[in-house]
């Protein structure tokens, strides 16, 4: 494959994607499906931890992930001079 002018930019983007999507998969499938019963032995106030992750915590993490990605990419765009305007 011929070298693209934005290869470094794209590679950093892919690295962010792998990291953020691993967190996404960990909270949604790890904490809320596969290890939920194990997490239930801990408590968070009136919640069992696994139950809280499955019905509340994961959603908060999702919102944060998107804003973190947007911020990281804005910085990356500037670093490589590919931002709009």
């Amino acid at each position, binding site marked *: *494959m011929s070298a*693209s002018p*934005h290869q470094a*930019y*794209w590679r950093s*983007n892919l690295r962010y*994607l792998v990291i*953020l*999507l691993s967190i*996404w998969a960990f909270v*949604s*499938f790890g904490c*809320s*499906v*596969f290890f*939920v*019963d194990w997490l*239930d032995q801990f408590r*968070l*106030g*009136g*919640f*069992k931890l696994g*139950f*809280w992750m*499955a*019905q*509340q915590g*994961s*959603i*908060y993490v*999702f*919102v944060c*992930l*998107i*804003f973190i*990605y*947007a911020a990281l*990419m*804005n910085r990356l*765009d500037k670093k490589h*001079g*590919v*931002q*709009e*305007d």
Partner: protein
Amino acid sequence: MGIQGWTYLLVGLSFALYIGIAIWSRVSSTKDFYVAGGDVSPLANGLATAADWMSAASFLSMAGLIAFSGRDGSRYLLGWTGGYVLLALLLAPYLRKFGKFTVPDFVGDRYYSRTARVVALFCAIFVSFTYVAGQMRGVGLVFARFLEVDITVGVIIGMVIVFFYAVLGGMKGITYTQVAQYCVLIFAFMVPAFFISFMLTGQSVPQIGFGSMLSNEPGTYLLDKLDLVLTDFGFQQYTSGRLAQADLFCIMVALMCGTAGLPHVIVRFFTVPKVSDARRSVGYALFFIAILYTTAPAVSAFARMNLFNTIQGKAYAEAPNWFKTYEGIGLIEFQDKNGDGLIAYTGDEATNEVVKIDKDIMVLANPEIAGLPDWVIGLVAAGGLAAALSTAAGLLLVISTSVAHDLVKRSINPNITEKQELLFARCAAAGAVVIAGYFGINPPGFVGQVVAFAFGLAAASFFPVIVLGIFSTRMNREGAIAGMVTGIVFTASYICWFVFIHPEINNAEHWWLGISPEGIGTVGMFLNTFVALIVCRFTPPPPEEIRQMVETIRVPKG
């Protein structure tokens, strides 16, 4: 003023607001009609996406579903929110950079093929129609319950309203009406939740309230009490699940990828000015959705608790008003099996006397069950209508854009003028409203069932093709078409086999690897990707200009 008076007033006011916005935002160009001119602010787009996304099902049915399935209900909560992470990271910014009007546009251009465009077009129309019929039905039901008009009249009123702002204002009208509808629906959802949370736990924020102690039993947490009473009466514990993990996983993946692949959600991110706006806008959208989605499980727990407290062991003759009302319209059924005149509500079939409780009434009846003032009940009706109408409008726009732009302009007659194209778009929107209304009044038996599977189909068809189109420069026409066809045929046949042909064996024993028809879209999606990658290896690579196009959509500039 009674419940009906308040309902008329609040529904009337909200409708007047929507029509006012429609008149203010009339459009004259196809770009305005399809993507609101492409200059919607990311915040407004986030609000509109949230209203577009949250349908009658999210507003009315979801909390009820969770109330009766406990922790297993989280598959809906996470499935329908986690998809936005995929949308923000894998799709929205690149499709915005691509900068056309529709999803079939992207598929057709990226895979340099009219066949691919037409396949995508029919998938988009099919998914949107099954969805929209459900929304019109929701409108009819709310009207029938609260304003005591016939369902048919209710659907027609809903059609007129949607017709007005979708046909006049296109995407621009829809966007700004959806912003208003979000405000109405979130207010309507939160007010009763605050009240009920405060009454039960003394903590008015429902997200904290359902993990707090009961105000009438200090020292006991609400969820522990709920688990205790439910298990005492033979029900499944509220905070534990019983679905198999593999199935739960598949259902969640199908819902997430389906959400990210739904055409009416994707198209919203064509309306913001910049790539960076598209990324941020998905974040706003999920934030606004999360307000409702983190409140819903709290409402579910409160509702289950209140339901239990208000009917269990009470004399039938003194049953609360709402119990009688819903019994009257067939949504609750009571049989006094042991003839003692008391209501026994238990998890054991032999002794349970409340033989039917429709899940959908949990949100509608919740304010009544908790004894809240009449205006709150009217507010819930207005909120339910806002949720159904906003989703219906977004879907109708996808249908009209697909017909006018992808079918007429790009596939049949590329020479039509912009004015003619706009006329086609308006006629298609009008036609779609009428067909949707017809299905709302005469729902074919399969609609309700199909809506649930639309996600699996979207996940198995669109999602891999779009992602591969962006992340692989090597993916070609042959691979994409083969993948899409494999995914959709496999998923649709599995669903048909268990749901329509052999419903009697639709259970975990017969399912392949224990995966339910709801979750099979995940397998279809992996098959799609696998077939696409194999076929693409043995067929010629895409032309050089396509490779360059992919390089361009990967960077914001230019």
